[in-house]
């Protein structure tokens, strides 16, 4: 059956490529529908098993970093950026399997969203489960964040080797009670706690006084935009991450914890982390017509807050906030009012809004005392305007929801924008 399913999946993939389309998730969808157990049986052959990465924010970056770091020692199978449903994982397996269905890999690192992680573990018990955070996001899909935490609890309970949990997020830390295997903790130093807030702390003025509840195996001890310091068990290590943003520094702590579990040394992990290029739109900097364009995915209050605080090293010449409300973004834009935008008033250049909810965003900024220079519904057009407004050698920062980022991705691919760091 595995040989047959692999052939069918590869057949679908080949036809799509002949038709000039990328593989996408269709091969996985087809194989899933004819052979529901395919993924579980194939993954069961991996000698070091599967690591599932889940949580509200940072799944894509964390998966990419972890796959890269583990790739310095092992053959790593991973799912492509952002395809965090099980059919994306099936497609990835079909793509890399030999024609006889064999997987020439040591282990897999799979990004799964909260609902699919719960479904996935019913089919395949992963070796390791990494949970980053539980924050308010997509409540039109999940209903409540307490429900999201329960879904993640099912994944944690299924882990057969270890779980890696965020000590500082109470909803994540509580999941430790459900684990039947050892817990490896990551966290941030108490002095950085106000930067990395749990959902319950979004509206608290001062969280600096919150003392950690338990020791962590890995701790982010110092953060500046171009430099992160980690305590890894007992030693201190400096890392220059290529992905901008404090949230990526926090995600890297989870990566370090998981990589320790695979037997890598602290020195090797720290050095490999410095080589990971950012995932698209997660703190990535591109060169567009001689201007630096930084893309920051900002799809919920926690992520937006950290993205806004990640400004560095120079303040932007133009800022763009692009808010779409398509299904993949979440139809509801109420969450924009859970973000404090007052800091944008102090940026030196103009602020523009873009996307289907450009007017909503401009209204939001008005109430935070931020003047909006322009509203442009079409997202690529907005970026073109922003680039014109910025001087050559200048810097444009774009905060963007998912689908707005896809539009920018297409546009920048077409005009040949390239990575500048």
């Amino acid at each position, binding site marked *: 059956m595995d040989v047959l399913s692999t052939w069918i999946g590869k057949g679908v993939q080949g036809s799509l490529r002949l038709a000039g389309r990328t593989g996408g998730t269709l091969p996985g969808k087809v194989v899933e529908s004819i052979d529901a157990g395919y993924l579980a049986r194939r993954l069961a052959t991996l000698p070091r098993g599967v690591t599932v990465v889940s949580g509200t924010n940072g799944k894509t970056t964390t998966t990419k970093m972890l796959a890269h770091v583990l790739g310095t020692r092992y053959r790593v199978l991973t799912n492509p950026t952002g395809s965090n449903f099980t059919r994306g994982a099936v497609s990835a397996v079909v793509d890399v399997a030999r024609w006889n269905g064999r997987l020439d890999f040591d282990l897999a690192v799979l990004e799964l969203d909260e609902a699919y992680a719960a479904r996935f573990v019913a089919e395949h018990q992963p070796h390791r489960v990494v949970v980053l955070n539980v924050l*308010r996001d997509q*409540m*039109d899909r999940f*209903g*409540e*964040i*307490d429900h999201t935490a329960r879904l993640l609890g099912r994944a944690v309970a299924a882990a057969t080797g270890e779980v890696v949990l965020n000590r500082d997020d109470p909803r994540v830390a509580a999941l430790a009670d459900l684990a039947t295997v050892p817990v490896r903790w990551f966290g941030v130093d108490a002095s950085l706690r106000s930067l990395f807030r749990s959902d*319950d702390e979004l*509206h*608290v003025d001062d969280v600096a006084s919150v003392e950690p509840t338990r020791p962590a195996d890995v701790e982010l001890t110092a953060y500046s935009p171009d430099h992160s310091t980690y305590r890894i068990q007992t030693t201190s290590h400096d890392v220059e991450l290529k992905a901008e943003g404090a949230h990526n520094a926090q995600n890297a702590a989870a990566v370090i914890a998981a990589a320790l579990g695979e037997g890598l040394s602290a020195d090797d992990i720290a050095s490999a982390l410095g080589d990971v290029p950012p995932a698209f739109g997660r703190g990535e900097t591109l060169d567009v017509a001689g201007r630096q364009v930084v893309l920051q995915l900002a799809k919920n209050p926690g992520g937006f807050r950290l993205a806004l605080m990640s400004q560095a090293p120079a303040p932007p010449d133009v800022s763009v906030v692009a808010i779409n*409300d398509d299904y993949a973004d979440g*139809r*509801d*834009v*109420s*969450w*924009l*009012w*859970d973000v404090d935008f007052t800091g944008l008033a102090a940026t030196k250049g103009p602020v523009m809004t873009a996307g*289907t*909810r450009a*007017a*909503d965003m*401009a*209204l*939001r900024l*008005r*109430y*935070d005392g931020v003047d909006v220079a322009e509203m442009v519904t079409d997202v690529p057009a907005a970026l073109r305007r922003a680039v014109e407004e910025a001087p050559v050698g200048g810097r444009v920062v774009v905060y963007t929801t998912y689908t707005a980022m896809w539009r920018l991705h297409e546009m920048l691919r077409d005009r040949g924008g390239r990575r500048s760091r």
Partner: protein
Amino acid sequence: MSVHIVHLYASEMNIYGDNGNVAVLRRRLEWRGIDVAVSRLGVGDPVPSDTHLLVGGGGQDAGQAVITDDLASKGPDLRAAADAGVPMLLICGMYQMAGHYFAPFDAPRLAGVGLLDLHTEAGPTRLIGNIAVDSDLGPLVGYENHSGLTYLGADARPLGTTAVGQGNNGTDGTEGARRDNVIGTYLHGPVLAKAPSMADHLLSEALAAAGMSRDLEPLDDSLAEQAARVARSRPR
């Protein structure tokens, strides 16, 4: 003289941008040069006697259970304030708790505070999506996300009728409830951001409660109107 806005259960019941209603009310006073003070009213805190406007938001089901006992202890003061004409805006979870009771699907009934003549029963599915409402206070747009179905009694009148969406219970076409100056609604958004006339109605009543002139200079709300038009055109 300043207007005192009280944010009820700002920590326990504050989800989905509902604190934005407080920000809108505060700014609309500041823009007009009227002094305003905002305080957060948490579990165990007494209701201030100089409350001129009270705002409460939605919460998780768990948050609703946490505040039930405390709400009962605040009940007499809140009902006295409502009877005296103090304006109140209660969203989603607090709207439900402003009624006689909320009956969850698989948990004991939670007693409400009886500010509004209504009750709420858990329904089989969540009512989720963009919503547009026609009301006496102008057109309202927002987002609803609730499993409770709310039914009004004789002493409450609907805030409006649903043009898009499900509203109180998905069957009778009503949304929200009013009595005196108390308004309850399922609309997140936050609702006041794109409904400046409703915001100013509440502020006018708050000024009266504070013993100040009701006069409110007009503001340029073209951006709010534009955002509301877009919101109304979006898929549910």
